[in-house]
């Protein structure tokens, strides 16, 4: 009978355990939280946008699952658990939230092991999108990072800008002040990326100057909470998001030290994951969740979160205020997410304005597609496709010649010429010599001492090397063979060799002096430079000038690359520019914009629709308004032109 009693005890234990499973509910308690901290943050008052409520999709049938990959900082604030409860109550969807760090979340999404990505690292998000992995990026809230440290502030950085604070810390740390230390996340997370951006802004190369530069800099390789604990233990500074800091505050000996600065902005974004295997239903579910985050009720809930515990909101939803940030960091925060397919467009910088308008009308007509625009120097975007193996559904170049030259036939097979442009000399009312400058004397004005001018980078941007071509071509037009050597050669390492009628310009190493001749990194940098008064004049496309609203000099057709009948004349000048480890020679051609669908496209039908829009009546109107003369009908060359486009083009 001894056997019996022992056996029954065991059975009892098993019943207890099994019973526990059945009794168990599914809500868990959020770990106990902490007290208040005060930090003040300034934001730009938002454009209040009325968010049209997207009709939530109702899923009938068995309960669906949606997998959300997020970061530890966001998860540990408890916001997601709070929102999860609300969402699951209204929807037949189980949210499965896994928080394992920004890098891991992105990896999971890329491999299709997550349906939604919820992170706060704009640079990494944009790389993720450019890889074709995501749709419908929406920013839904923001807050600010804070530099926290010991109350005694041994480095004396209180009140400084983040960049100055970092400069002070690294200087003192490297000099051997043992009281000054910094703990970094060191784990490629959103917070870590933000920290790296501040170092960059302060003028340091992270890998060379900061990492492994001494005992003062500690790379924790841990989540935010643990990093804070470490900083507290060591009496060191660290960068943290406000939410986590508040959650841990009672356990830490850290105070907020630096709280103001544009580089402290922390933007939370959400996007739907798309892979070749991701089913449409899952993307639709993801969109539904995105729209939930943007909905007025949820935005309000986000604003309220934390008020009770901490006396202040932990997050500023976009509906309350939209912060200013470098272009692209803050994603769309109002348009409902409906797209389930991606249309990725690479386009020349000068097409930015028109393509942005076309994007809007295209998405209206095709709510199932998310158009993602990527702007860059035409040569640079073409390199992305043929050298870096990036895919694209549409590629529009400011120099149509580059398409057959660099993309045929492996990466593209056809080319549609759709617009023209010309080189002009832009200036402002306050530019020196503005009163008298015209099409005949511009080069004399430019040669005047104290007058500066800018061009775009000739090594990557056709606008740049075309500016040089214009200057070279003017020598024959005006019968003055010294124009180039007066304006360009003395202020840079760009040289010109003339052989009879032909000129060859060597721009392999521009090295401008930066005072008379300024070369900007990208095209879009030029207009701001003019407006700021840093330069007096700039060579740019007429379309850019028109869009900027600034005055400009219309140059003679012999030199402004606008006239296809003068192709032979333009061909007399060529520019050598570096390409990869070699060089390439660009021959002068009329400025014609070309567009194609690269062979790597994942959405050929969408690409064709977009091109049809571009070359159709609506596209023509948009181009005209922006100063890019449309070619009507568009001229197509090459092979395998998509059937949907054929009726709308003329073959050459």
């Amino acid at each position: 009978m001894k056997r019996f009693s022992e056996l029954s005890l065991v059975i009892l234990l098993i019943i207890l355990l099994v019973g526990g499973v059945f009794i168990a509910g599914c809500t868990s308690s959020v770990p106990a939280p902490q007290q208040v901290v005060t930090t003040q943050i300034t934001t730009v008052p938002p454009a209040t946008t009325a968010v049209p409520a997207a009709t939530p999709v109702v899923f009938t049938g068995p309960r669906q699952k949606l997998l959300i990959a997020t970061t530890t900082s966001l998860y540990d604030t408890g916001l997601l658990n709070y929102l999860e409860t609300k969402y699951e109550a209204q929807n037949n969807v189980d949210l499965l939230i896994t928080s394992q760090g920004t890098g891991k979340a992105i990896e999971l999404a890329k491999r299709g092991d997550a349906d939604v990505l919820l992170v706060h690292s704009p640079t990494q998000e944009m790389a993720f999108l450019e890889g074709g992995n995501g749709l419908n990026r929406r920013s839904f809230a923001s807050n600010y990072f804070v530099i926290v440290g010991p109350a005694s502030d041994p480095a004396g950085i209180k009140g400084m800008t983040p960049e100055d604070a970092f400069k002070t810390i690294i200087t003192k740390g490297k000099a051997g002040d043992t009281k000054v230390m910094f703990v970094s996340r060191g784990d490629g997370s959103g917070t870590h990326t933000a920290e790296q951006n501040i170092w960059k802004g302060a003028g340091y190369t992270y890998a060379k100057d900061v990492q492994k530069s001494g005992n003062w800099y500690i790379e924790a390789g841990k989540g935010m909470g643990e990093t804070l604990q470490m900083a507290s233990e060591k009496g060191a500074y660290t960068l943290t998001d406000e939410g986590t800091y508040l959650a841990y505050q009672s356990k830490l000996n850290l105070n907020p030290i630096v709280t103001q600065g544009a580089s402290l902005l922390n933007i939370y974004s959400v996007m739907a994951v798309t892979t070749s295997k991701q089913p449409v239903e899952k993307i639709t579910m993801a969109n539904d969740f995105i729209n939930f985050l943007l909905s007025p009720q949820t935005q309000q809930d986000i604003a309220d979160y934390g008020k009770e515990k901490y006396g202040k909101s932990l997050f500023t939803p976009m509906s309350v205020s939209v912060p200013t940030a470098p272009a692209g960091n803050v994603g769309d925060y109002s348009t409902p997410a409906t797209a389930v397919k991606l249309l990725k467009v690479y386009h020349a910088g000068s097409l930015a304005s028109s393509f942005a308008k076309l994007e809007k009308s295209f998405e209206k007509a095709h709510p199932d597609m998310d158009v993602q625009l990527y702007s860059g120097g035409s040569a640079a975007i073409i390199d992305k496709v043929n050298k870096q193996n990036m895919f694209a559904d549409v590629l529009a170049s400011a120099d149509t010649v580059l398409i057959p030259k660099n993309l045929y036939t492996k990466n593209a097979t056809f080319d549609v010429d759709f617009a023209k442009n010309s080189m002009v000399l832009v200036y402002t009312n306050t530019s020196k010599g503005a009163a008298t400058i015209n099409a005949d004397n511009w080069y004399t004005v430019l040669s005047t001492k104290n007058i500066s001018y800018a061009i775009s980078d000739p090594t990557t941007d056709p606008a740049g090397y075309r500016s040089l071509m214009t200057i070279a071509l003017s020598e024959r037009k005006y019968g003055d063979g010294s124009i180039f050597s007066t304006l360009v050669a003395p202020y840079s390492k760009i040289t010109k060799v003339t052989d009879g009628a032909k000129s060859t310009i060597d721009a392999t190493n521009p090295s401008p002096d930066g005072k008379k001749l300024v070369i900007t990194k990208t095209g879009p940098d030029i207009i701001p430079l003019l407006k700021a008064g840093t330069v007096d004049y700039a060579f740019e496309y007429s379309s850019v000038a028109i869009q900027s609203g600034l005055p400009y000099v219309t140059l003679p057709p012999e030199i402004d690359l606008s006239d296809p009948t003068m192709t032979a004349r333009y061909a007399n000048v060529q520019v050598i520019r570096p390409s990869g480890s070699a060089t390439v020679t660009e021959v002068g051609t009329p400025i014609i914009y070309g567009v194609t669908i690269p062979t790597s496209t994942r959405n050929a039908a969408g690409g064709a629709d977009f091109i049809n829009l571009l070359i159709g009546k609506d596209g023509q109107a948009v181009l005209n308004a922006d100063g890019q003369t449309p070619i009507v009908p568009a001229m197509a060359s090459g092979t395998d032109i998509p059937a949907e486009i054929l009726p709308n083009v003329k073959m050459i």
Partner: protein
Amino acid sequence: MSEIIEGFLQAVNMIVTLNPDLLQIAALSLYISLCATLIAAVITIPLGGLIHFREFRGKQALITLIETLYSVPTVIVGLLVYFLISKSGPLGFLGLLYSPEGMILGQAVLIFPIILGLVISALSGISLNIRDTIVSLGATEFQGIFEIIREARFAILSGVILGFGRAISEVGVAMMIGGNIRGETRVLTTAIALGTGMGEFSLAMALGIILLAISMMVVFLMKFIARRYQP
């Protein structure tokens, strides 16, 4: 230090009040690790018998390899199994990622070398005389393996208990494959990791104490069953 005491009190509190979250997490931990141990044992015990009794080239090298795998980091096993069952992996269609079943697979893979190695070691401990006797009594190869395994049962059980211990106490696989999803794949160890990451040390201690208590019950249970089931 006070966290340890606080943790203990919190543990008792959670048990006595039958805290539903705790019960769910603890039951899930047990379910996953017991299944993993069972699966691994069922495969490794006969396999260990075969390896031990058959002579073949490279046998010693194989055994050394098995023993080397005792030290494989749990995160690495987690990563390898993840590559296998990720949507972009060969077994992605099974949909095992972020499910308890996937975690069972991962833990079974993790503890496989340990149990296998200890089974072989246990069998080696049975003297050659016994083996000769059994063969001489007319046992077929499998009858012989079975009897020797029975003879070594207590040593083998130790191996199984060790395997269970490693399974229920590890974090790497559970985190990678399970994702620590609340209500779905959060087990004691990942909850402890989350707790420590969030600075909830008392909670973490409490969960740790509960994990040990559960393990103790399981070990007692296994030994009890072994003693009862005596031939």
